[in-house]
């Protein structure tokens, strides 16, 4: 039994080996034809895999950015996070601004909240010595900002209670700012100038990398809101004032939103018939908007790539028919010498799959090279994932089998006498 098994395995391996060798010889003998026919597959695989790679990378980046905002945080703001042509901005413009005193009322009265922070954003110029950076985003946050926003501090520390409540001139700076302003020294304990005012650096954020939402802490400066009063007008509506509220562990955002809605309505003294004059936003709104966008891009890429691959498949089928026609008398000789139908079939099928695989591998290699170059140049990590590599190989093999089977089967069914006679 063991002997028979070994014999069968030997026959199978011989068959595969001979088929591959025949395929390679045939492809090498017609180099130009081979290159032209695999070009279709290369372009098809490239088109599909590059779209999926870019989409996957964008989704990964977006997920990271959204996670850094906090997935169980509700943003109390004037305007809702909505996009599209039907956005009634004129309606939201009339709403009252979210002001700092609201924060105290939320902290005191909201039982579903574990932490809350008032935040505004402004643009400033940051200087240290001769180095100067313009248009740096300064985030002005109240004491519990570290509890509502996900970030890590690489060096130094977060503000203490006294610094925060008394509004001391302290700051935590992003990794890019730290390396630009302090290329050869530790920034912690050093002084920087924010819009001309001296501020002591007490911490440096851990490097986050580029963010699709543009909220990376790498290029931000965080200062206590009570200090920010000396830099900017914290009641200015243009500074995007908002209160970030984190739900207690075990509670959902819906629970928190339900309580916050009642609380905000009572703070704004709204009558039962009045509409809400505030917005309670959550990060899932961003994810949903982007999911539908990515879905559309994915389908467009799929259709374009799909047709490219179909065209490539027709190219391979065509070349295989030509190949069978050219080698008809050789097939006849092989069959008259005892070659079985399955050997002829596998020989041509391997040739088609091999051709298609080479095209697919070249397509994947081009995508890989682009991810290396693009990743460095655009600052966003673009990764050719395992699933996309598997998909590339799958499509290559599938197109080889589908386009090569009919010509290969036709070759295997040829009559040896008629095949030898053919020109």
């Amino acid at each position: 039994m063991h002997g028979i098994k070994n014999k069968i395995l030997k026959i199978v391996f011989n068959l595969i080996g001979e088929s591959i060798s025949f395929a390679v010889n045939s492809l090498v003998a017609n180099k130009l034809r081979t290159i032209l026919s695999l070009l279709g597959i290369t372009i098809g695989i490239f088109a599909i895999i590059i779209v999926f790679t870019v989409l996957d990378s964008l989704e990964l980046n977006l997920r990271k950015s959204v996670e850094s905002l906090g997935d169980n945080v509700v943003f109390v703001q004037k305007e809702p996070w909505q996009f599209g042509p039907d956005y009634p901005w004129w309606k939201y413009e009339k709403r009252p601004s979210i002001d700092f005193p609201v924060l105290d009322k939320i902290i005191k009265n909201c039982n579903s909240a574990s932490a809350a922070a008032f935040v505004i954003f402004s643009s400033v110029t940051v200087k240290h010595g001769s180095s100067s950076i313009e248009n740096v985003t300064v985030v002005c946050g109240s004491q519990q900002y570290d509890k509502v926003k996900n970030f890590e501090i690489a060096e130094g520390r977060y503000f203490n209670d006294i610094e925060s409540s008394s509004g001391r001139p302290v700051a935590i700076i992003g990794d890019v700012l730290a390396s630009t302003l302090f290329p050869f020294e530790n920034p912690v304990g050093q002084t920087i100038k924010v819009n001309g005012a001296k501020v002591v650096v007490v911490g440096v954020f851990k490097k986050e990398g580029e963010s699709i939402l543009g909220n990376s802490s790498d290029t931000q400066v965080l200062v206590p809101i009570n200090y920010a009063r000396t830099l900017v007008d914290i009641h200015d509506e243009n500074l995007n004032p908002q209160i970030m509220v984190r739900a207690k562990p075990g509670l959902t955002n819906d629970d928190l939103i339900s309580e916050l809605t009642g609380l905000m309505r009572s703070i704004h003294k709204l009558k039962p018939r009045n509409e809400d004059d505030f917005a309670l936003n959550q990060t899932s709104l961003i994810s949903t908007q982007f999911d539908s966008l990515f879905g559309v891009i994915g389908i467009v890429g799929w259709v374009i790539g799909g047709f490219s691959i179909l065209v490539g498949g027709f190219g391979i089928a065509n070349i295989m028919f030509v190949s069978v026609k050219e080698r008809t008398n050789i097939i006849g000789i092989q069959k008259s010498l005892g070659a079985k139908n399955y050997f002829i079939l596998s020989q041509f099928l391997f040739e088609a799959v091999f051709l298609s695989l080479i095209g697919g591998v070249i397509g994947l290699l081009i995508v890989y090279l682009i991810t290396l170059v693009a990743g460095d140049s655009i600052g966003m990590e673009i990764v050719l994932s395992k699933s996309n590599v598997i998909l590339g190989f799958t499509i290559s093999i599938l197109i080889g089998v589908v386009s090569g089977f009919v010509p290969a089967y036709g070759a295997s069914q040829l009559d040896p006498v008629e095949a030898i006679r053919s020109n």
Partner: protein
Amino acid sequence: MQSTVKRPKILKIVCILGFFSIVFSFLAVFSPSVKRMGDWYPALFGLIVAASFISYIGVWHMKRWGVQLFIVTFFVKEILAVSVSDFSIAGILFSVLCIFPMLLFYNRMDLNL
């Protein structure tokens, strides 16, 4: 050495419908929805599509291995569909409607490759 058995019209229709379904299934292999089901799911799905295509070629040439391969592929496809909760009654019905005429003419089909 082409098969000399005449192909019944009903099998001709089944095969042509099958080839059309293969084109759509082929495009589905790399669709975003199939890709979302797992890293290896498109590969398995692609294998099923390839096997289905080969089985239709076999049936077109009136070969018994075509019917056998079609039935095996049908069961593998349904097991895979159940495992990912992507069960479709319409898909099963289409396959069963294909298998029925194939089995009807099975005895008239050729045994060889």
